[in-house]
């Protein structure tokens, strides 16, 4: 009950921030229409068997949702700088409840991004069976888990004035090498690196449309391994941080 109070507070605060909403939801949406609308009738993007609207719908969901989860955790840096986390540490609110609020808020923002882009995708002719929609959404939500931990990690490593460039740059870079903007092909240097990034598997969720499994066993292992590593490092960063402050 008590930890829910803080989560509710974070949600109200975040969804009331119109500028944050406009940029978080509007930016991927505009990019989606700019790229996909002129090519809406291309049903076999680069020989992948995936239509351009579907490919970019998932690509921009990956971009927007990744950004939402990382930013939500990274806001901890601002709250540390402002002294708000010190204030919270003299209340009965537990650290895990505080982190939970950040993760839930990040996922809520990701869900809004997903809803807006799915609706736009459908408007441009994306059509999948109900099961495929669910499978794709499930994979996206799972692939976002490591980014929730990454956000909290950055929140403890960065300072308020470096969050903007750090998160913006990191998300752009991950999106680029993970195939958000163009398919990576099936071999080559970029493809080989991308295999080991959870963001690659996030983008690959669009493969549900061509039958079979969108993720290989390797995909599950990469996402799980990054989750474990980032949770451990984030925990370490948190402990070091509270010891010092």
């Amino acid at each position, binding site marked *: *009950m*008590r930890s829910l*109070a*803080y989560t*509710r*507070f974070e949600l*109200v*605060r*975040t969804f*009331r*921030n119109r500028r944050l909403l406009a940029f978080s939801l509007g930016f991927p949406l505009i990019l989606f229409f700019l790229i996909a609308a002129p090519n809406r009738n291309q049903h076999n993007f680069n020989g992948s068997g995936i239509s351009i609207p579907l490919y970019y719908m998932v690509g921009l969901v990956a971009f927007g949702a990744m950004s939402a989860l990382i930013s939500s955790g990274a806001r901890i840096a601002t*709250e540390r700088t*402002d*002294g*708000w986390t*010190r*204030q919270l*540490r*003299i*209340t*009965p*609110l537990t650290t895990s409840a505080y982190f939970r609020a950040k993760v839930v808020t990040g996922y809520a923002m990701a869900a809004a991004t997903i809803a807006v882009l799915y609706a736009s995708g459908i408007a441009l002719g994306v059509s999948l069976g109900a099961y495929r929609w669910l499978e794709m959404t499930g994979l996206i939500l799972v692939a976002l888990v490591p980014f929730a931990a990454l956000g909290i990690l950055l929140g403890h490593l960065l300072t308020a004035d470096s969050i903007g460039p750090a998160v913006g740059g990191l998300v752009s870079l991950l999106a680029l090498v993970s195939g958000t903007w163009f398919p990576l092909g099936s071999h080559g240097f970029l493809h080989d690196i991308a295999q080991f990034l959870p963001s690659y598997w996030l983008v690959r969720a669009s493969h549900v449309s061509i039958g079979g499994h969108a993720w290989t066993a390797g995909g599950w292992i990469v996402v799980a391994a990054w989750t474990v590593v980032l949770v451990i490092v984030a925990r370490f960063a948190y402990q070091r941080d509270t010891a010092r*402050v």
Partner: protein
Amino acid sequence: MRFRRSGGIVAGMQCENTIGVELRGAAKTYRSSGAVVNAVRGIDVSIKRGETVALLGPNGAGKSTTIDMLLGLIAPDSGSVSLLGGPPKQAVARGMVAAMLQAGALMRDVKVRELIAMIAALHPHPLEVDEALDLAGLADIADRRTHKLSGGQAQRVRFAVTLVPDPALLVLDEPTVGMDVEGRRSFWRSVRDFAARGKTIIFATHYLEEADAYADRAILMSHGRVVADGPTSEIKARVGTRTIRATLPGADLTDLASLPGVTAADRRGDAIVLICTDSDAAIRALLNAHPNARDLEIASAGLEDAFIELTGNASDTTAAGERQEALV
């Protein structure tokens, strides 16, 4: 249901419950870029429940570090801290402590009432949100967004954040910095009303007047040590003093210090400085004993001045002093 701690203590719990705060040999050293700063050098402080205590001292005296230790925000390097009969973290987890820290920001994009209600919801036995808003004088701006408040209003919101948990112990770290005169007055009126409910209150300040007017007792810190601890009237007599300066070459400091009304004497080149509890008696005695004293000046010493005179060490040279000691 609301449970309010009041002055009356349940019989049988009295022993463990009369001590509000206890620091024993608490020490904290910071290391940054090669320099070692002994922020707090082993202090013993014991505060009873229901006391209002001022923590006095110039900047760098160790007040904020002491407060951080007693709130459990930092662990002492050595020594122990106990709060309301247990470790600080336990008292915090039970919602028995609240603190107004220096420069604590307010969250944006929320209304004042929402912020206070959220804090209330985190605690096991909070005040009614409206009662806390009233106590802090926020009733008329409860529906404003926190980032649209003036500095003084924001400070009152931060005060309400500390009142709404209905804590047994309230800690205020230089709470009136940035408030205007009327703001200060009404702030302290609210603090006094809250103290009257049997609460323990500790506040840090460098204003002697605030300690004198609102605390039962003052703890004086300098260079990480407690240099005086007692009723505010005693502390005031010790530092709320006047200083006499005069040019008097070759005078004997021991003789000067023993003049009536003088508590300490020091030399600055050809000049002497006398710290006085009774400057009228002191100046008569000085002129009687040393008719050749000239360039006389009498000034009322603020706390800062009194420290400089007493310790021969201005607060802003503390860090440099510490570094030298660290090298030895």
